[in-house]
C-alpha cells in the first residue's frame, strides 16, 4: 500500500502561513525576476490565470480583481517542505520525496485504520506547519496519485466526488462499485503517465475515463502502445509495478538559467552572468560527484517582447593541450 502526500497550492500556501491576510484572496507567486506565475491560489485559478502565465499578461488583475503577486522565496519553500516531509514520514516505514511538495510513503506493515492515520497526519501538518495538503491511499503508486487528485478535487469542487473522499481519499477502502464509479467519473488524462499525446490517442480509441483504461487487458496495451503504458494499466488494476526510490538517481543534465530583470545591451553583465551560472552548475555537479562530458552555453532574447529574436547556443570547445603522441 502507498500514500501520496501533496501540499495544496504549495508556494502560495507557504506564503499564507506568514501572511494570513492572503487567505481567500487571489494570489500568484512569480518566478525569478518576476517573469511568470509559477503558483496560483484557487481564487487565482478561478480568475482564469494559467500556470506559467507571463506577469505582464495578468498584471491588470491587480486593480481589476485584487490579485496579489509575490516574488518567489525558494529558501522559505525549501524549509517548509523539509518540515512537511519530516511529518509525512510518520505515515509509514519508507518514504520517497518526489518533489518539493509531494512525497510517497510506503505503508507496508502499518496496522490499523489507514484513513484515520492519514487524517491525523494531515491535521498535524496543518497545525504544526500551517500547510494544507491532500493524501491519497491505494495499493499502487499510480492509484495513490489518482487518489490524491480525487482528495483535492473533492475538496475544491464540492459535488465532483463523494464528500467523504475530500482531503484524504483511500481507494482501497472503497467497495468495488464505489471505486468503479469514481474511476468512471475521472478523465483518463489525470492518470500519472498519461500525457496530452497519449491521452488524445486513448480518447480517439474510445478510452475516455480511468475506468475504461483499467478495463483494457495489459497485453493489448503493450501491443498497441508501450510497455510503459502497460505498467500504468497494471498499476491501475492494483498490481504494484513501480517501487519507492530511496535515493534519487544522479542528474544526467544540470542547468542554471535565469532571465534578466531588464534588457541587457553590454557584454560585461553577460560575462558575469555566464560565469556565475557556470559556477553554480559546477557546484551541483560536484555535489553528486559527477563529471561533465559537455558544457553548453545559450543566450536568447525574450520571446515575449515584440522585437527581432536571437537564440543561439554553443557547446564549449575545450583545448586539448596534452602532447600529441609522436608516430
Amino acid at each position, binding site marked *: 500500500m502507498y500514500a501520496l502526500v501533496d501540499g495544496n497550492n504549495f508556494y502560495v500556501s507557504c506564503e499564507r502561513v506568514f*501572511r*494570513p*491576510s492572503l*487567505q481567500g484572496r487571489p494570489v500568484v507567486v512569480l518566478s525569478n525576476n518576476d517573469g511568470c506565475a509559477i503558483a496560483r491560489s484557487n481564487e487565482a485559478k478561478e480568475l482564469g490565470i494559467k500556470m506559467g502565465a507571463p506577469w505582464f499578461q495578468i498584471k491588470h488583475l491587480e486593480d481589476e480583481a485584487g490579485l496579489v503577486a509575490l516574488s518567489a522565496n525558494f529558501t522559505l519553500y525549501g524549509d517548509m517542505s523539509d*518540515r*512537511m516531509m*519530516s*511529518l509525512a514520514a510518520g505515515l509509514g516505514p519508507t518514504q520517497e520525496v518526489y518533489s518539493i511538495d509531494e512525497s510517497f510513503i510506503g505503508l507496508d506493515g502499518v496496522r490499523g485504520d489507514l484513513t484515520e492515520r492519514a487524517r491525523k497526519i494531515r491535521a498535524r501538518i496543518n*497545525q*504544526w*506547519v*500551517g500547510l494544507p495538503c491532500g493524501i491519497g491511499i491505494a495499493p499502487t503508486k499510480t492509484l495513490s496519485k489518482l487518489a490524491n487528485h480525487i482528495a483535492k478535487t473533492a475538496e475544491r469542487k464540492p459535488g465532483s466526488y463523494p464528500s467523504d473522499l475530500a482531503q484524504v481519499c483511500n481507494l482501497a477502502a472503497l467497495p468495488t462499485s464505489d471505486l468503479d464509479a469514481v474511476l468512471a467519473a475521472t478523465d483518463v488524462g489525470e492518470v500519472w503517465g498519461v500525457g496530452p499525446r497519449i491521452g488524445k490517442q486513448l480518447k480517439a480509441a474510445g478510452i475516455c475515463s480511468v475506468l475504461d483504461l483499467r478495463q483494457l487487458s495489459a497485453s493489448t496495451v503493450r501491443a498497441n502502445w508501450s510497455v510503459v503504458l502497460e505498467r500504468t494499466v497494471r498499476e491501475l488494476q492494483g498490481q504494484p509495478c513501480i517501487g519507492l526510490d530511496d535515493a534519487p538517481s544522479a542528474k544526467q543534465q544540470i542547468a542554471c538559467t535565469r532571465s534578466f530583470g531588464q534588457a541587457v545591451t553590454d557584454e560585461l553583465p553577460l560575462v558575469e552572468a555566464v560565469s556565475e551560472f557556470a559556477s553554480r552548475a559546477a557546484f551541483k555537479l560536484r555535489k553528486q560527484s559527477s*563529471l561533465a*562530458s559537455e558544457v553548453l552555453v545559450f543566450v536568447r532574447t525574450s520571446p515575449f517582447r515584440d522585437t527581432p529574436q536571437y537564440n543561439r547556443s554553443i*557547446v564549449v*570547445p*575545450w*583545448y*586539448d593541450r*596534452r602532447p600529441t603522441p609522436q608516430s
Partner: protein
Amino acid sequence: MYSTNAFYQPVLLSDAEALLPLAGDRVQAGFPSPAEDFAVKRIDLTEVLVTHPQATFLLRVSGESMRDAGIFDGDMLVVDKAIKPRHGHIVVAVVDGEFTVKYLHMRAGRVKLKPANVTFPEILPKEGQTLAVWGVVTSAIKRFVC
C-alpha cells in the same frame, strides 16, 4: 589546434580524511587526562529551546505592547505551533489578518488577548469572530551585543 571531442581528466584530490587529533587520542608518555571518562555532550542551544522542530519558528518583535512581560521591541521569539494554547500562555495570534503577541486569556468560556503594557488595549473577538492562535511563545531571545 583544438579538439571538440577530447576533454580534461580532472585530477583527483586525495581521498584521505583530514582528521584533527583529539588530545586524548595521542599516545602519551605522560598521564592520561582525568577528564576522559567524564566527557559529555556540550550544551546545544537548539536542543534547549526547540521541542518540536517541524513546528518551531523564529519571529521578531515589533512594538511595546508586551514590555511588562519582558518582551521588548527587536527581541526574537521562539514560537511553537504544536503546543496546545492554554490560559496564561503568551501567544502569537492573528487579528484582522495581522500577527500580534499577547497573553491568552481563556476563562469561563471567554477568550481574549491581553497586552503586558497598561497603555495598550485588550483585544476581544468581535461578534461571530474567533481568535486565531498561530503559535505559543516558548522563549524570548534578547541580544545585548550584536
